[in-house]
Each structure stands twice: as structure tokens, then as C-alpha cells.
């Protein structure tokens, strides 16, 4: 195999190298790649929004399905533009209040479902040392999150056990991820050596 003659591959390869140059230090090549990525991705995002939101979720329902319910978010969205005018800028609080209300309201039942699931999963469905350790771990971790008691004496000791469990869990998650991240890097190197330079197959 030989070095690529495809201009698009060259662009991708040079941009890849420009990003890696950040590992040495901040430099003009990285800056170029960074600003370009931000600029292009926002341009891309606008197009996706136009297609997925304005056309699919506003225009089509309104014009073809005569679904006038869409007018509500449309008006809420337009109220956001009140920020461009100082004397009516306060109107933009209405859509903000709406989305915050929706977010918090939706989270209440979903938090409950999650709560139930976690308690259910902790219940020892089979009796072994593992389930005992899980019960101890869950309870001591919960004690660590106790806010209205000072963490000293017995509570302090249990919460120490809790933080030990937490650190083991963090270490496990850390170790679990390392290889996945290394393989991402290997993927990029493969692109450079094979698709671009054609050194390896």
C-alpha cells in the first residue's frame, strides 16, 4: 500500500495530528483545529436543528397535521428572543421557568423508580457472603451521605467504611475504562498509519 492520494483523508490526518500537538503544548496548529471544530460543529448543529426541529417538529405538524399544540413551544421559543430587547428581556424567564418545571417534575417519579430499583437490587435474593458485603456496603455508603449528623464516633466509623467502598468502586471503574481509552488511541494511530500513510495494512 502507498500513501493516500485522497484529499479528504489528508485533511482528516492533518487535523488528527493538529489535535495531538496539544499534548506537547497549546500551539497554532491545535488552535486552528479547535476553532475549526467549534465553528464547523455549530454550523452542522444549526443544520441539524433546522432539519430536526424547525421542519420536523414545527413546520410539518403545523402545516400538514394542523397540530396547533406546537404553537405553545413555538411561542415559548420565540419568547427567548425577548433577551435581545432590554425592556422586555424578563419575558425569557417564562420559557426558562417552563423547562425547569418540566425537568424537575419529570425527575420526581423517575427518581422514585430508580430508588425502588436500587432497594430491590440490594435485597439478598440469594444468601451468600457477597450479599452480606453488598448490604454492608450500601448501608455504609448511605451513612457517608448523611448530612444532618456530624461524622464522628460510630457514625464517623461507618462513614469511613462507606468511603472505602466508594474508593474501591472508583478504582474499579477507573481500571475498567483504561483499556477502552487506549484502544481509541490505537484506532487513531491505525488510521494514520494505514488509511493515510499506507505503512500497515
Amino acid at each position, binding site marked *: 500500500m502507498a500513501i493516500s492520494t485522497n484529499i479528504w483523508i489528508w485533511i482528516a490526518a492533518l487535523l488528527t495530528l493538529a489535535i495531538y500537538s496539544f499534548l506537547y503544548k497549546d500551539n497554532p496548529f491545535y488552535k486552528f483545529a479547535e*476553532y475549526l471544530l*467549534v465553528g464547523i460543529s*455549530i454550523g452542522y448543529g444549526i443544520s441539524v436543528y433546522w432539519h430536526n426541529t424547525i421542519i420536523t417538529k414545527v413546520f410539518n405538524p403545523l402545516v400538514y397535521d394542523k397540530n396547533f399544540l406546537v404553537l405553545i413551544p413555538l411561542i415559548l421559543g420565540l419568547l427567548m428572543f425577548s433577551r435581545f430587547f432590554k425592556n422586555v428581556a424578563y419575558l425569557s424567564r417564562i420559557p426558562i421557568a417552563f*423547562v*425547569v418545571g*418540566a425537568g424537575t417534575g419529570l425527575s420526581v417519579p423517575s427518581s422514585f423508580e430508580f430508588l425502588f430499583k436500587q432497594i430491590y437490587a440490594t435485597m*439478598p*435474593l440469594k444468601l451468600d457472603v457477597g450479599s452480606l458485603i453488598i448490604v454492608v456496603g450500601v448501608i455504609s455508603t448511605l451513612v457517608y451521605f448523611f448530612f444532618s449528623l456530624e461524622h464522628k464516633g460510630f457514625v464517623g466509623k461507618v462513614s469511613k467504611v462507606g468511603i472505602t467502598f466508594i474508593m474501591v468502586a472508583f478504582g474499579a471503574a477507573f481500571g475498567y475504562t483504561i483499556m477502552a481509552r487506549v484502544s481509541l488511541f490505537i484506532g487513531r494511530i491505525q488510521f494514520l498509519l494505514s488509511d493515510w500513510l499506507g505503512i500497515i495494512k
Partner: protein
Amino acid sequence: MLKKTLLLIFLVFSVFLFSQENDSLIFLENQNPFLDFKLTGNDIPNDGGGGIQINWCFPDSLGNWFLTVLRRDDSNNLMVVATDLLVSSMQVRDVSSEEEPSRVKDNTNYYYTGILSQNMINEQFLNKLISNGSEYLKNGTYIFGNDTFYITGETEAIVSKSSWFNLSRIPVLVSLIIIAFVFLYYLNLAKSGKDLYIRKINGLDAVEEAVGRSTEMGKPIMYILGIGYVTDIPTIAGLTILGRVAKKVADYETRILVPSYDPVVMTTAQEVVKEAFTEAGRPDLYNKNDIMYITQDQFGYAAGVDGMMMREKPGAVFLQGLFFAESLILAETGHSIGAIQISGTTETAQLPFFVAACDYTLIGEEMMAASVYLQKEPMMLGSIAAEDLLKVFIMFLIIIGFVLSVLGYGFKIEVLKSVFDWLINLLQV
């Protein structure tokens, strides 16, 4: 010659007849060896309508057979519900979906019929059956070509209904009411002036120091809200912490930079910072352009924030909100410029990286409680005390569950076994 021609015509005709014969349906009414095989159906309970479930039991001998389910309404419109289901799957659901919103209409009678076959159903046969109309869909046996199909009897009329209350969520409703009372009790307690305590949270005592040190060095503060939306609770929690931090920033008369991923988060952050600066009596210091939008692309955002960190060199970096893979890219860059970093998220997969790369990390609930800690108002402290009481309740529940399981299953005490099973059942929402 004539004989030959006649013979030929006869031959062609017979081949034609034979092929017709092969293609035609032979129907043997009421002759069905599987009379016991019946479909039953019911409305799917606790849903918003538009859903019927069809069940069947089967003898072992039919385990590898196929079942095709058809449905008829009162105006005799036929529809194929599903083809070639494995008989051993024992049920199928006929439901409206996004693509077919009015597939199953509520309050309409539907009658279901099944076609049993040893091989997959023949398309031609199915089309023929449907075009013949519903009167051919009677209990009996069809022979089509080399295949034999057995038609089951029709179910009674099944009607899909929309429920006004989801009965399976009663445990959630009950606990919601209990929890609401616990919260209201503590909020009242707080109102009546009872002192409520909150334990020390390490990272939050460092906020003052971080903002102060940045100011001394003449550097701005950077506050990163991650890549969540305003509908995500961690992002909302991050915004409430931003309010408290921004107030300190205004007190110290320094700058706060908030690069954002979502435009709604950006506008909300602008409101939060403006309000904090006004409360601190320094609305003049508020600069809308310091709370800017970057991009809605995860790694584009990471690249943009990284670059901003390298160039603005903030003295303190706050990472509070919803973070995914970009967490470590941001935290390591923040570390490399020597900023004090206070992070917090609810994403357990990202917390290890924050713990390794930041000076202080707020873990899960600590982050949600941070805004209360930073502004110890009685009502807010009341809500934290309520959360703690619920923790005690959960711990008891887990311990009771464990004891019941040990006594019930370990020591075989039947009563406790069934109590444990009942508890487990209750928790399955």
C-alpha cells in the same frame, strides 16, 4: 394429426388444471386436531389505551410450530397482527405505535384468530385467505399446495381501554405521599425556627479560598456546567451552585467565565449570574458575554473549553453538572494550568476521574446538597434533613429485608419467607 392436436390440448389443459388444483384451497370445516389450542386476549392494563395482549397455552407437541395471528373488527376488516410467531413464545401484543398511532382503536371490538402451521406461513395462502374475507376464517383445516394450516376458533370480542390510573404504581404513589409529608414536616420545623445542622463538605469550604486566590492572582474563575440540558437535575443543581459561587465572585469583584454546551443552559446561567451579581450589589460587574455558548458537540465543547482554559488561565475551575467522557479531558487540562479545581457530578462512571484529577470532588448527593450548604437557609436545610430521614428508612428496609431473607430462606421459616417475597414484589415497580 387431429388426434395429436387433441391430445396436446388435453395435455396442456390437464397440466393447467393440475397447477390450478395445486394452487387452490381445500377447506375442511371443523376438522381440526388441535381443538384445545385456543387464543385468549385482554386489554393491556394500566396503559394509555391502544394495546391488546393475546395469549395461548400449547401442548408440548406444538412447541416448534408457527402461529400467525389475524384480527377482525365488527365491519369484518381483516388485518395480520403477526406472522410466524413461535408457538412456544406464548403471547403477542397488538399495540399502536409511533408509526401506526391508530392501529388499535380504543373501545372497538376486535376478534382474534390464529393459524397454526408446521412450516412458515405461505404468503400466497395468507393473501388468498384475507381476500376471501372473514367468513373463510372459521375453525378448520386448510390444505394449500403441500402445506396444511389449522385455523383456531375466534376469540370473543376484546376491547382496548385507556386507564385513568396506573394501579401498578400505587407503591410509588403511597411513598410519594409519605415523602411529601416528611418534607413538609421538616420545612415547617425549619420555619418555626428550629436549628438544623449540616455536616462539613470538604470541597465547599474551599470555594471561598478558590475564588479568593484567583482574585489575588488577577485571574478569572471558570465554571463548567458539563453537557447536560436544563431538564437534567445535575445541570439544575450545577446552576444553583453557580448562583452561590457567582455571588462570591461579585463580592471579590472578579470575573466568572461560563462556557456552555446547550443554549438553554447558557441563557439560564446568564439569569443565575445576573441575579447573583444584583444580590451582591454589583450588577455593574455583570457581563453577559462572559457566559458564552461554545457548541453542542461533545468533543467540540471539550476542545473549545480546553483552549479557553489555556488562554484565559483561570485560577479556579468549577466542574459542576452532568459530565461524560469529556470529564477527564477538562479536568486534566485544568490541572495542567495550575487551577484549584472543585468538581462534582452524579455520573458514577466519571467520578473516579474527577477524584484523581481535581483538588475536591463532590460525590453524587453531596453535589445536589451543595447549594444548600453554601447558603444555609432554614427551609433548604429542612429539605436536607428530610432526605436524611428517608435514608434511615431505606437502611431499615434493607436490614429488615436481609433479616427476613436469612430467617425465611436460611432457617426455612415459611411465614417470613412469604413476607420477604411480598416485600420483594412490592419493590418491583
